[in-house]
């Protein structure tokens, strides 16, 4: 007798960044493959997830990815919008829904925002910085565009494990902080390794004619850290949380200015 039912493989995967697994469900096999490629090294097909998103793919209209992102909360439900996506997420239910076209950039933005919201309550954050592990210690290199995040990542010697050249993932753990690899890339377009290590120092990048490390006053360190934090939510409680997290970080982790000439010798100062 012929088999009357066919087991349908669920179109689903888990994207595990920073130790926070997020399940993504889709009805589109092509989109699933796209995600598998985009988050290579950070995906698994099954297992527990902290949050679950259903993705509804829509036909391309006139998306405007440059439009301002808005992240608002009402009665326990977050709404995340930009020109190219609309997402809703209920933390209590640990579920959400994303409406976007079949592209990797929109869901990438949604994931980054959701991670910032979760981390803000836990004393962690995403930071505009490159990060890398050397001798079991993680180093963060923060700066605005053109400050040298990609350059210092590109110059890293073979014994350095790159976590990201663009957006660092920092989680508070005990009395210290741990940096995790992320798939969020900058100009280097190379995914960070999916590993982690305790944060040893934060360097504020500046390009110069020589390599040197200088101390930074706590006030300037805090202002620089705040200026480089990724945070989008229009939410007073979380804004206050992230503000205090920056002070906590500066009180526990050395913050230095790293002026560097763009060649490999700068790494002689790190580690």
């Amino acid at each position, binding site marked *: 007798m012929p088999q009357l039912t066919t087991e349908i493989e669920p179109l689903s995967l888990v994207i595990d960044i920073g130790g926070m697994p997020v399940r993504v469900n889709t009805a589109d096999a092509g989109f699933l493959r796209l995600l598998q490629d985009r988050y290579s090294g950070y995906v698994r097909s099954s297992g527990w997830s902290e949050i679950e998103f259903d993705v509804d793919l829509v036909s391309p209209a006139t998306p405007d990815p440059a439009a301002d992102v808005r992240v608002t909360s009402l009665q326990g439900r977050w709404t995340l919008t930009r020109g190219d996506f609309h997402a809703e997420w209920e933390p209590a239910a640990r579920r959400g829904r994303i409406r976007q076209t079949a592209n990797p950039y929109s869901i990438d933005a949604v994931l980054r925002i959701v991670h910032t919201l979760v981390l803000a309550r836990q004393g962690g954050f995403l930071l505009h910085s490159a990060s890398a592990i050397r001798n079991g210690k993680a180093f963060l290199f923060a700066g605005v565009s053109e400050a040298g995040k990609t350059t210092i990542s590109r110059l890293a010697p073979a014994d350095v494990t790159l976590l990201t050249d663009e957006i660092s993932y920092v989680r508070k753990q005990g009395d210290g902080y741990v940096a995790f690899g992320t798939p969020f890339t900058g100009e280097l377009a190379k995914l960070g390794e999916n590993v982690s290590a305790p944060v040893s120092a934060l360097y504020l990048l500046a390009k110069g004619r020589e390599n040197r490390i200088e101390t930074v*006053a*706590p*006030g300037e360190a*805090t*202002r620089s850290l*705040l*200026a480089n934090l990724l*945070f989008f939510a*229009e939410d*007073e*409680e979380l*804004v*206050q949380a992230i*503000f*205090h997290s920056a*002070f906590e970080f*500066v009180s526990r982790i050395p913050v230095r200015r790293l002026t560097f000439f763009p060649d490999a010798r700068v790494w002689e100062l790190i580690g």
Partner: protein
Amino acid sequence: MSRLYVARNPRVAARSLDGEMMIMSGQDSTLFTLNRTATILWQSADGATPLDEIVEHKICGEFEVEPAEALRDAETLARELAGHGILQISEQPIPQRTAPSGESR
């Protein structure tokens, strides 16, 4: 002439670090660093002490300025800080729910 009362806006986050008072708006995440006068005003803004008393007891002694001139400057500063959502100002005492230290944590 009516008296002016000032109070810290409880909807901002504030921390002092090495004598620098930093304040972040909870609404739009704008970061402010207060100068010495603004810091004294912020720390004294309990909603119950009139601005002229704050000026007389906390500002004049610190900066050796004439009370009338100091009060005019303090009113201008208070209105500016209120414009940024850092302080609340009123001609009546303002009930407060922030910590007396002026830090939100």
